[in-house]
């Protein structure tokens, strides 16, 4: 007898988290543009506040439109639930602030989005949370950096901008052996290309601004919990396993078991830090997710054509993309990313900083801006923009050179993209020749 089946990814991308609106029959997710929700009576109000009933109280804590996005992402990732946030950075901060206090320590990959590097390396340090950065290519590096006060291991599934492929199973094993959770930033891979929870990660987040939204119209983040990490057994997280005077002496793990992390993150993190997502933003990101399974294969297909052009062009010193055999993460990528390595790549243009600048300025289809994961093709020079606060040494450790250019390949006609890049590469070398 065959067992029951789960809905497929494509179906979940379109439906998860929503039933047709019971009040109006609306098939599209309604935008509940409201701050607050009328209580049935005083007892109902008290019960909602004391978490005796499910429901919405105030849109900083939860909102019906945002809840659809949260549940849809939990379904796509295979988590117990999710919290949508004002940005990807807010999601990272929410995870850290929920799990640790001053005096705690994080072991993080040194190949991170510049904003994450700033948060961990500078800003959190002011609040007594230290981070040790390690090269992510060797899982043993994470183990060596763990201290008694370490509370989290953190890395990107594909590093930014070097595209290091994180060996999620191996790093998760290191984390779990130390009684610690592994948090990954899965922005570049999306649940379509990689399911980090199936590989052993415990928590993940996305900058939903990127491929999830997919159209460059809304800033947002989403933090998802696998519900698999046993906070009680770890014994390192009194934030979740001891009575908390900030919430009626609630012991979150005792109260809710697998929901403990998200319960505290929502009831404390959104309540106190307030970095919530607006309902219209959730609606816009949901529109993107509904075609994620169609867009990602095309992103990958176009990227492969672009990589093929770049790898054979004499103006290019190096192309960094894990599907190329010379990439250090190539073998791992074949194992962990069988559907493709995403749509972000970096290129070192011969001639250094000036050639890189000339290359970017000659592009006509690619837009020069600070974003990735748009349906439109994008380009940026990390050393002077996204990673500009990093020292030269940190830049080198993250694999970023003066002439490194990051591309985010969109959904345009691939021939137009190849032509645009070919022309810009020629332009970049004219500048070198003139010098």
């Amino acid at each position: 007898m065959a067992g029951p089946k789960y809905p497929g990814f494509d179906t979940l991308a379109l439906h998860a988290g929503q039933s047709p609106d019971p009040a109006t029959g609306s098939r599209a997710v309604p935008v509940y543009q409201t701050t607050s929700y009328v209580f049935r009576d005083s007892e109902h109000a008290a019960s909602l506040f004391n978490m005796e009933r499910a429901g919405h109280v105030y849109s900083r804590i939860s909102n019906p439109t945002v809840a659809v996005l949260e549940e849809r992402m939990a379904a796509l990732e295979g988590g117990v639930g999710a919290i949508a946030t004002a940005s990807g950075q807010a999601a990272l901060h929410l995870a850290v602030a929920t799990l640790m206090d001053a005096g705690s320590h994080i072991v993080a990959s040194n190949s991170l989005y510049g904003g994450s590097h700033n948060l961990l390396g500078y800003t959190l340090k002011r609040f007594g949370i230290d981070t040790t950065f390690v090269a992510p290519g060797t899982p043993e590096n994470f183990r060596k950096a763990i201290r008694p006060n370490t509370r989290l291991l953190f890395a990107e599934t594909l590093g930014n901008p070097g595209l290091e492929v994180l060996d999620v199973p191996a790093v998760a094993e290191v984390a779990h052996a130390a009684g610690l959770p592994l948090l990954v930033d899965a922005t570049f891979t999306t649940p379509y290309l990689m399911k980090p929870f199936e590989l052993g990660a415990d928590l993940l987040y996305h900058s939903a601004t990127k491929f999830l939204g997919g159209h460059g119209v809304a800033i947002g983040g989403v933090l998802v919990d696998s519900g698999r990490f046993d906070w009680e057994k770890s014994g390192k997280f009194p934030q979740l396993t001891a009575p908390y005077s900030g919430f009626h002496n609630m012991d979150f793990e005792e109260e809710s078991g697998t929901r403990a992390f998200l319960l505290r993150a929502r009831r404390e993190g959104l309540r106190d830090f307030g970095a919530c997502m607006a309902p219209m933003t959730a609606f816009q990101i949901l529109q993107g997710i509904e075609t994620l399974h169609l867009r990602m294969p095309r992103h990958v297909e176009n990227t492969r054509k672009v990589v093929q052009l770049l790898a054979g062009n004499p103006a290019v010193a190096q192309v960094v993309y894990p599907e190329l055999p010379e990439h250090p993460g190539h073998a791992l990528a074949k194992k962990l990313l069988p559907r493709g390595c995403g749509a972000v790549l970096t290129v070192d243009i011969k001639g250094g900083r000036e050639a890189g600048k000339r290359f970017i300025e000659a592009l006509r289809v690619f837009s020069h801006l600070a974003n990735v994961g748009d349906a439109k093709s994008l380009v940026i020079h990390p050393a002077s923009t996204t990673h500009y606060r990093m020292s030269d040494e940190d830049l080198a450790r993250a694999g970023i050179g003066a002439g490194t250019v990051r591309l985010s390949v969109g959904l345009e006609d691939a021939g137009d993209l190849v032509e645009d890049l070919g022309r810009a590469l020629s332009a970049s070398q004219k500048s070198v020749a003139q010098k």
Partner: protein
Amino acid sequence: MNFTVDGRQVFAYTAAQAIDEAKPTIVFVHGAGLDHSIFGLQSRYFGYHGHNVLALDLPAHGRSEGPPLGTVQEMADWVMRLLDAAKLQTAAVVGHSMGSLVALECAVRHPGRVGRIALLGTTYPMKVSDAFLQAAKENRQDAYDMETIWGHSAQAALGANPNPGMWMYGESLARLGRLAPGVLYSDLNACHTYAGGEAAAAAVRCPVLLVLGRRDQMTPAKAGAAFARTLPNARLVQLEASGHSLMTEAPDATLDTLIEFFRS
């Protein structure tokens, strides 16, 4: 709150309240492979509204030490020993699925201690398919998949969880993922082999509430309603928008039904 029963440490959620012998007590008994957290909202409500609550983790579930108890009758007697450990003489018992059979046996085997029972997502006999039992016996993932998918209405596959931001399937799978090997099989086998329903139905004397989900795929409402007709003093409530996991699929309607039952 931790208790010692049969020399083993076991857990029951009390809504972070001290036990007060002057208050009425409600015991919540979870179903196969579940734990106290399945009653999170309902048990918390009663804990803050004039009752002692003991939302227990049966042995080998949640925070309670094992091994699992192999029969419904053993579980019922164990619930009474937990009451002893909590120094409580009487209680109402709310049981879900396998826990509903435990509640029924509590009422019949210990009539002086159980004043009323509420049976959620129930039926009798509670037969389990050979395929499900075998998968659980072999600790296969598809046993957890069957428990998850059949344990909810078909609509739950696509979500719309009343609890904002949570995904019911994900919660179910994560909870089951924490079970020790063999525990789900032990529970399912206890349901499958339980043969005391007819005798218990004839013997029960206390008020009984049955709450069924019309979209239940595990214990179909039609079968549950037929069982209800064999119980004297039984009140039957069927919730339109719920499958087997009434406490999470229809938390408010389930709570309102329980409130009314305990007020009457």
